[in-house]
């Protein structure tokens, strides 16, 4: 659980690291903390995995990775841990999740593939299918991005 100071820090950090010489000092002054304390707490949040990555989130479409396919796979439950690891090891795979099945929807493993073309995505899916020994799958290409935003946590 995050305490009150952590939540306040999350609220500041989600606005983006200030573009000043001493950004952590700028945050510290807003929160009435010292710069050293802010740095220590940020490091602790990274260690605990609350901060997954401290870096920049970049729009990949602008970088030429325009094709994006979600591939849904039907995998026997007992093979999910093994197959999940195999699929996650492919560099083209940016996301790999196990999800609950739904009525009329037997798929339980989901990967997101990014490529420069749809063909690259299809070809990667075929290689993954072979490596994982899973033949029941569908590719769902995105045709439009309707929304993509970063979550704002702990807003009133």
């Amino acid at each position, binding site marked *: 659980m995050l305490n009150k100071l952590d939540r306040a820090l999350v609220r500041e950090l989600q606005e983006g690291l200030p573009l000043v010489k001493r950004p952590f000092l700028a945050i510290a002054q807003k929160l009435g903390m010292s710069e050293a304390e802010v740095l220590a707490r940020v490091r602790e949040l990274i260690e605990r995995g609350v901060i997954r990555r401290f870096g920049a989130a*970049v729009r990949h479409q602008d970088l030429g990775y325009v094709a994006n396919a979600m591939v849904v796979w039907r995998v026997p439950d007992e093979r999910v841990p093994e197959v999940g690891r195999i699929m996650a090891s492919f560099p083209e795979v940016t996301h790999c999740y196990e999800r609950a099945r739904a009525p009329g929807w037997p798929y339980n493993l989901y990967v997101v593939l990014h490529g420069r073309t749809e063909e690259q995505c299809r070809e990667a899916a075929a290689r993954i299918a072979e490596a994982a020994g899973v033949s029941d799958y569908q590719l769902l290409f995105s045709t439009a991005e309707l929304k993509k935003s970063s979550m704002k946590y702990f807003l009133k």
Partner: protein
Amino acid sequence: MLDELDRRLLNLVQTRLPVAPEPYRELAQELGVAEEEVIGRLRRLIEAKIIRRLGAIFDSRKVGYVGTLCAFKVPAERVAEVAAEVNRHPGVTHNYLRDHEYNMWFTILAGSEAGLNETLREIKERTGINECLVLPAVNIFKIRVNFDLA
């Protein structure tokens, strides 16, 4: 649009931004340019929306939030109107159209299970879409969003 220094800077900051008193000075040293140059370029990349977020990328579960992926079957002529209702909710962070009979795929995050169910109930009620898959994650094998710009 992006020059070589932009690419080197993006490659660097995607994976690691120093958690140190002067992070931009450290990046500048690594790139062999002035600190002001790094700050100026980062500002420009953010304004151009090439960088969506600088700094902390959170794990929503560890922050204490719950979430799910949802898929709707939306008639083609209603896509714009349904998207407007879905996207209105701040907890909906991603929404994509996909070439499938389930054509609208979106994620919802909320501070509690009850909040999540309430958002989903409201979206379904206000759009009248009943053909809906609710697909919460039970296990995460990988999340990586770095791209090599070299």
